[in-house]
């Protein structure tokens, strides 16, 4: 069962980290747009 938990936790972590990276780029883009 520990293998299953590890695989699921890793999947959720990777998807969440990628969503966070998209959100950070969105904020950076908005800041750039505001500066113009």
């Amino acid at each position: 069962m520990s293998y299953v938990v590890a695989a699921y936790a890793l999947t959720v972590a990777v998807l969440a980290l990628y969503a966070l990276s998209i959100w950070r780029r969105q904020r950076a883009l908005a800041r750039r747009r505001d500066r113009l």
Partner: protein
Amino acid sequence: MIRGVALMLLVLAAIAVPVGLALALFVAPVEAFQGEPYRILYIHVPSVVAAYLAFAVTFVASVAYLVTRRRRFDHLAGAAAEVGEVFLTLVLLTGPIWGKPVWGVWWTWDARLTTALILWFIFAGYLMLRAWSGPQGARAAAVVAIVGFLDIPLIHWSAILLRTLHPRPTVFRPEGPALPPAMLVILLVNIAAFLLACAAFVTLRLRQETARDALAQTVP
């Protein structure tokens, strides 16, 4: 600000992915031979499907870019490749975690695993090429994406034509899925959920790339 189709896809994915994972963990029946580790199927296979589909979008968009030279196709190719690489990373992480309890090894250099790893490196190179060469490298990146995509049929057929440790396809095969209905339904729910997440990510990244390009053209 995220809105429109992107927001709708993101909300649907944020609901569907946890529901799918909960069904896989707590509702799906235990497999007779493998026991609990087989539950990794419900994240491994949907990740494969999402990665393949994203790379297929990259392939089509790259061909369209080479034919039309419209920047939007280049943006779409880049956005889909990045998302495909994320899902392929999940495939290469969950595969060994599944392999260890079932095969006894984390990794083996058999045809399917090796060709999948090669695909990861091809698209990692593709993303680096895009990042470092900027708009000037769009044509070269499109060629790399088209050539890289040709690895996917090799991955699929490697487990059918060659002797590999990796099992043959149990869902996407000409004679139909080999899974019992209780397992198949939950697998399909997870495939749909991962595809929603994939579509949401591609839509968001495409908008960002388009906006970034527009900004770059307004700033001297």
